[in-house]
């Protein structure tokens, strides 16, 4: 495959946006920052791809408004996925593989605070048989959490330990929304959201955006001191109905991780889209990540969960670890759909010194 690197990353604060702001207004400084850090001019960007969801914005064609941030004049080569920005990154990476363009701007964004996320995400379910049950994403996650606890012998304290660790890590992340020096005991005192998940095991409702710039070949080394090279990138989906899956494993993550070569060499840092604490158990197992791997040093989605940008933020955070010289091999993960239905894995590596 052609060598492509993440050369810059920027993200927006994830507290809720003023109701007077558009999604484009939230995106604008983020895209501008990612561009500035890349050192590339706008006219050097060969392809632009974004990810967002009309239903979060509560408006059809919401992404058309986001085109404003690209300054699409003269016209640009551009595309959009109705998916997390991580899949926009995938589309851009694929485009770069064909060799027609050498750089790409990717962004993802969403304002979850304007609607009722638990109601909105119900609309992802099979419209004929599942959606009418109004089984929201928290309830479905709780179903999976129960299955995981039953299968592994782990308990609610194990979940609370994960959530508390994420919350503590997030103290150092200026973009985190929920951070505190808490213990598992603190979180076990919180009420259930949907048993066995307590409120601390569930992500906050976040607004946010993320942007990255991809550059192919040696040009990446010219614009970035420590380019984060994409060494493996793959994504897989599995059956929609939770009842058709073994909820105690994440088969699509395993397949994507294998295809991305996760196990070829040790991973230093993994940023996982584990928006519920039990999902970290599932994803660690599916990706074969041992205790030595630093998982979600940013705090992960339990600290800030800007839906449609959460996955791209993970890849950006994983890249940042390499940009800053803190790690040599990292992993970013994105997910979509109820109970981790669809998963993307991106393996990044720095140049060997």
């Amino acid at each position: 495959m052609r060598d492509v690197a993440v050369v810059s990353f920027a993200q927006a604060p994830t507290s809720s946006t003023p109701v007077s702001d558009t999604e484009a207004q939230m995106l604008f400084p983020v895209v501008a920052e990612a561009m500035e850090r890349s050192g590339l001019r706008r006219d050097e960007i060969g392809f632009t791809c974004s990810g967002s969801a009309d239903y979060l914005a509560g408006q059809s064609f919401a992404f058309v408004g986001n085109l404003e941030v690209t300054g699409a004049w003269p016209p640009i080569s551009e595309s959009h996925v109705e998916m997390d920005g991580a899949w926009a990154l995938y589309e851009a990476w694929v485009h770069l593989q064909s060799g027609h363009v050498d750089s790409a701007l990717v962004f993802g964004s969403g304002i979850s605070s304007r609607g009722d996320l638990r109601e909105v995400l119900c609309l992802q379910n099979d419209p004929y048989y599942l959606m009418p049950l109004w089984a929201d994403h928290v309830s479905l996650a709780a179903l999976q959490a129960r299955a995981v606890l039953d299968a592994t012998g782990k308990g609610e304290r194990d979940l609370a330990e994960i959530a508390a660790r994420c919350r503590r890590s997030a103290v150092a992340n200026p973009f985190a929304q929920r951070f505190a020096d808490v213990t598992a005991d603190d979180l076990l005192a919180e009420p259930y959201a949907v048993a066995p998940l307590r409120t601390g095991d569930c992500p906050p409702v976040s607004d946010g955006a993320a942007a990255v710039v991809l550059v192919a070949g040696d040009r990446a080394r010219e614009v970035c001191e420590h380019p984060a090279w994409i060494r493996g990138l793959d994504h897989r989906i599995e059956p929609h109905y939770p009842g058709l899956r073994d909820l105690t494993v994440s088969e699509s993550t395993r397949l994507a991780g294998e295809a991305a070569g996760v196990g070829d060499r040790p991973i230093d840092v993994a940023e996982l889209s584990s928006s519920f604490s039990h999902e970290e158990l599932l994803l660690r197992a599916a990706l074969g990540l041992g205790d030595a791997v630093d998982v979600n040093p940013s705090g992960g989605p339990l600290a800030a969960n800007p839906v449609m940008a959460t996955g791209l933020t993970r890849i950006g955070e994983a890249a940042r670890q390499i940009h800053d010289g803190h790690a040599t091999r990292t992993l970013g993960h994105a997910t979509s759909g109820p109970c981790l239905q669809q998963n993307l894995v991106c393996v990044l590596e720095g140049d060997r010194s």
Partner: protein
Amino acid sequence: MAERCAVVGVGQTHHTKVRDDVSLAGLLREAAGRALEDAEMTWSDIDAVVIGTAPDTFEGVMMPELYLADALGASGKPMLRVHTAGSVGGSTAIVASNLITGGVRKRVLTVAFEKQSEGDTTWALGGGRSGSVGAGGYFAPHIRGYIDRSKAPEYVGWMVAVKDRKNALLNPYAHLKVPDISLEMVKESPMVWDPVRRLESCPASDGACAMVLTDEAGGDAASKPAAWLHGTAMRSELGQFPGRDPISPKAGQDCAADVYRQAGITDPINDVDMVECYVPFSWYEPMWMENLGFAALGDGWKLTEDGETEIGGKLPVNCSGGVLSSNPIGASGMLRFAEAAMQVRGTAGEHQVPDVRTAVGHAYGGAAQYFAMWVLRTEKP
């Protein structure tokens, strides 16, 4: 160098007002199954699935790829969902082709759809707010602007409508069929959005379209003729700003110039044997003829008037009956791309243009600001 890409399978549903005999999944599966059958493949032969549809609000299902994964045999595979407004069917096919040309996958199934009967498109087009003028209301002033600028006679729009509706009679999958169509009928049909009359407008359809794309080895191995990809392009521009020309948008011109450059097309009217372009209202035929470089600015309508865009003319346009005859919005772009493939492969049946060597597929969307095109040929690049 990029891997070569071939279209080896094409399938579509019979497009109609209401497909209440199938679910959304059933509709897509029908088109996808036909494309696989045409490609002489089964679901397990496919490496990746790329789907496209217009806004989720049209059917009320958020990110429907999640629910559709099972029906499209995508379990354990990569699945992407593209959304670029009305051009989405074309963009979706391009994203699928990039998976091949980038050397990432070998056999890709791509499907685009709309089931307009499950929602209220005009409501959703208005951003989910009341008072939408619909697409026709939005584009009518642009059409009026074109007529004023080009001094085209009023009957040119009627001629496009008659031609596309006659072509639709040759296409078993077309939705709207008006057997006794005539200039008089179009002229007498009610004015919907001045200057667009009812018979100059597209219907609201349920339908889906699918294609199977392969790498060079797959194209070589296919027992039926393959359509070889010679270029793809997408262009987007802002929808509103002072000085923008919405009648012949620069994004459309740039998109055409890019795809012609890739395919080595220097004289479009002579180098291209047929074009299937996105004409939801009759006047967009002459408008796109100019925008895509088939005629000089202001002269596009003369191709229509001279009958050159009919089957048998110099540049047959929309031999399938076009969007004017079938408009499952999310699929409409892919139907254009698929018709180009069928014409190159010689599988277009009664609406086949003889000896097509080079065909162009085109789609547009948003405020005439999103464009997608591809060029297919009988020969490899």
